[in-house]
């Protein structure tokens, strides 16, 4: 509360609140609700039971009806708070419901049975996280498989992207050679060709290579990114040339100069590209959707999309899997936020 009070006391130099300040803070407050609210609601919902999700209007927190084990009944019985004829209230467990009458017992003394009209009882509810939403899909669906596929694609594709793009950037920044301008032009040219307009022919190439329904079909086409070459080249151009000349004097091979000198120095640019590549690969959708048709090779995004088609009525699993897909990205964001935002602001790409 103290911090809120302090926040309210900050003023402009003039010491007065200008109406624009109030408008700005209201706008930001609304923004927090609109941007965070949906994600928070997803996370809260993902911990509700299947019955809890069907409630309307929905409760804010994951609540579920409390159940008790009663002697003489094999299943745990749901608890209700009941208003009796004399106006007193008692907590009873429901044995079964027949039409508009419920047959109930006192959990303490199960011998005595009550017959209660169903409009006289309200469920006793408690806060409970339905963690089974998270554990059950692990056994029932190929969720771990999808996760493994996504991790494999992301890691391998990022490594390949870093290697071949840094090699090209090295060639384009350190050397003067015939055809350099043509090579640069090619790199810039492909900057403008998104996968959306060459979907069919890339599919043909992948088919010719025999890679349909293989994870390599997702990894390879996007590995050489013009944006990556560009980013790395701009950075490598700033490296001191003397260092490279000195290494040549010492009889270092060109490969050694690339690997032992230029790569370590280009670490900041490589890190930015790595983050971008991880983001692209983890979230990629259209191309994997076209080329991965077998369930075994689905990535998380494709698997999730397939689930939402099949599991229309099983939101409890779907929501939990959505949270699980979102979690790694959220973690990356929390730790690397500043890095990512400055990276985007400097390169103007995403």
């Amino acid at each position, binding site marked *: 509360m103290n911090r809120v009070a302090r926040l309210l006391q900050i003023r402009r130099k003039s010491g007065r609140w200008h109406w624009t300040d109030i408008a*700005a803070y209201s706008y*930001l407050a609304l*923004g927090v609700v609109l941007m965070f609210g949906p994600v928070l609601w997803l996370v809260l919902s993902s911990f509700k039971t299947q019955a809890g999700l069907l409630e309307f209007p929905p409760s804010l927190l994951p609540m579920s009806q409390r159940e008790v084990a009663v002697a003489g009944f094999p299943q745990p019985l749901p608890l209700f708070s009941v208003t009796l004829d004399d106006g007193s209230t008692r907590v009873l467990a429901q044995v079964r419901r027949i039409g508009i009458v419920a047959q109930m017992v006192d959990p303490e003394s199960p011998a005595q049975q009550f017959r209660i009209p169903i409009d006289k009882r309200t469920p006793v509810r408690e806060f409970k996280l339905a963690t089974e939403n998270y554990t059950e899909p692990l056994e029932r669906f190929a969720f771990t498989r999808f996760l493994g596929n996504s991790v494999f694609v992301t890691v391998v594709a990022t490594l390949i992207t870093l290697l071949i793009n840094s090699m090209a950037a090295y060639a384009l920044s350190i050397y003067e*050679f015939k055809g350099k301008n043509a090579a640069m032009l090619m790199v810039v040219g492909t900057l403008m060709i998104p996968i959306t307009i060459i979907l*069919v022919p890339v599919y*043909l190439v992948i088919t010719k290579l025999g890679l349909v329904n293989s994870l390599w079909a997702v990894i390879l086409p996007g590995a*050489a990114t013009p944006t990556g070459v560009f980013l790395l080249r701009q950075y490598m151009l700033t490296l001191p040339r003397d260092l490279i000349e000195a290494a040549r004097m010492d009889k270092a091979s060109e490969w050694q100069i690339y690997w032992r000198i230029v790569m370590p120095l280009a670490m900041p640019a490589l890190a930015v590209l790595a983050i971008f590549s991880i983001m692209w690969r983890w979230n990629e959708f259209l191309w994997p959707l076209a080329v991965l048709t077998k369930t075994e090779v689905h990535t998380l995004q494709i698997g999730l999309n397939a689930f939402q088609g099949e599991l229309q009525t099983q939101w409890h699993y779907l929501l939990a899997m959505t949270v699980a897909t979102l979690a790694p990205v959220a973690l990356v964001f929390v730790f690397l936020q500043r890095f990512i935002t400055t990276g985007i602001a400097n390169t103007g790409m995403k």
Partner: protein
Amino acid sequence: MTPPLSLRRSAARWLGLFVAALMRLVDWPMRWLQRLLGERRMAYVFLLPNLVFFSLFVFLPLIINVVFSVTGGTALFPSERPYVGGGQYAYLFDCDSFLDPGSCREDHFWRGVANTLRFTTFQVVAMVLFSLVTAVVLNMRIRGRGFFRAVYFFPVLLSPVVVALIWKWILQRDGLLNAGLTALGGQKILFFIDPGWAMFWAVFVSIWAHMGFYTLILLAGLQAIPADLYEAAEMDATPRWRAFWRITLPLLWPNLIVVIVLALIRGVQTFDEVFVLTGGGPGTATLMVVQYIYETAFSNQVQNFGLAAAASVVLGIVLFGLTLAQLAASRRRSA
């Protein structure tokens, strides 16, 4: 269970040694190549892997795309496809009136075009408006600016599927929004059954997901405006709105152009979020061009690669025009 620290450290060291050994192994043929080619021509060796990837997955496909678009049949391999000349394009453009998709032979394509146009127009206007307001607000003297910037930015990193599912859950029949509506005394609305609402939410969700990116570009532009301009304006007792109109907007114009063109290029290519959110429905109310291409080539009963290729050539030409506009804009920005 995490392994003890010492074990993890030694694992990292072994990995490092392995990579170092691998690179030393690569060095051997590289030295041989260098002796063969000379120092300077090693550039080609370094360029080679990238060029192989570019030509296999970009240049070759670009050419094959045109080949596909002038051949017919359902075969995937061009050698088995009969030449049809401009037949695919003629089929695609066979319309009584281009303003009425229903009058076209390939009405889905034209519905896709109309929807994409509508979507892109609304999306770009709203995107520029909201990201501008947000950037201006974030650029004010505000407590916790880093936090608020992160709030607007984080959806950019979420995958389109996750974004669409988050909103699908909120907008469903018994969802949070309908609960709010009934609590206020209203009626439940079936958002994905009504064409108008479906398009509205497609635009809304896309803005929600990408606004942070454009805000960041505009914020960078705002922060580059020298503060003494505003101080001078304050000295002259210029009203704030006037300072905004006379100083902020003109100086921010280059960044605004970039935002507009980028949003246009992305808008025309919209697929993921809308596809997962509405599936193109109800009917074809939110079917976009890219979804049309995807379905024509891959998910329809008859895979019509030729038609899909022709449609993507058309899309490619539009994107090329937009990209030229972007280049012109960014050249003016740097000049």
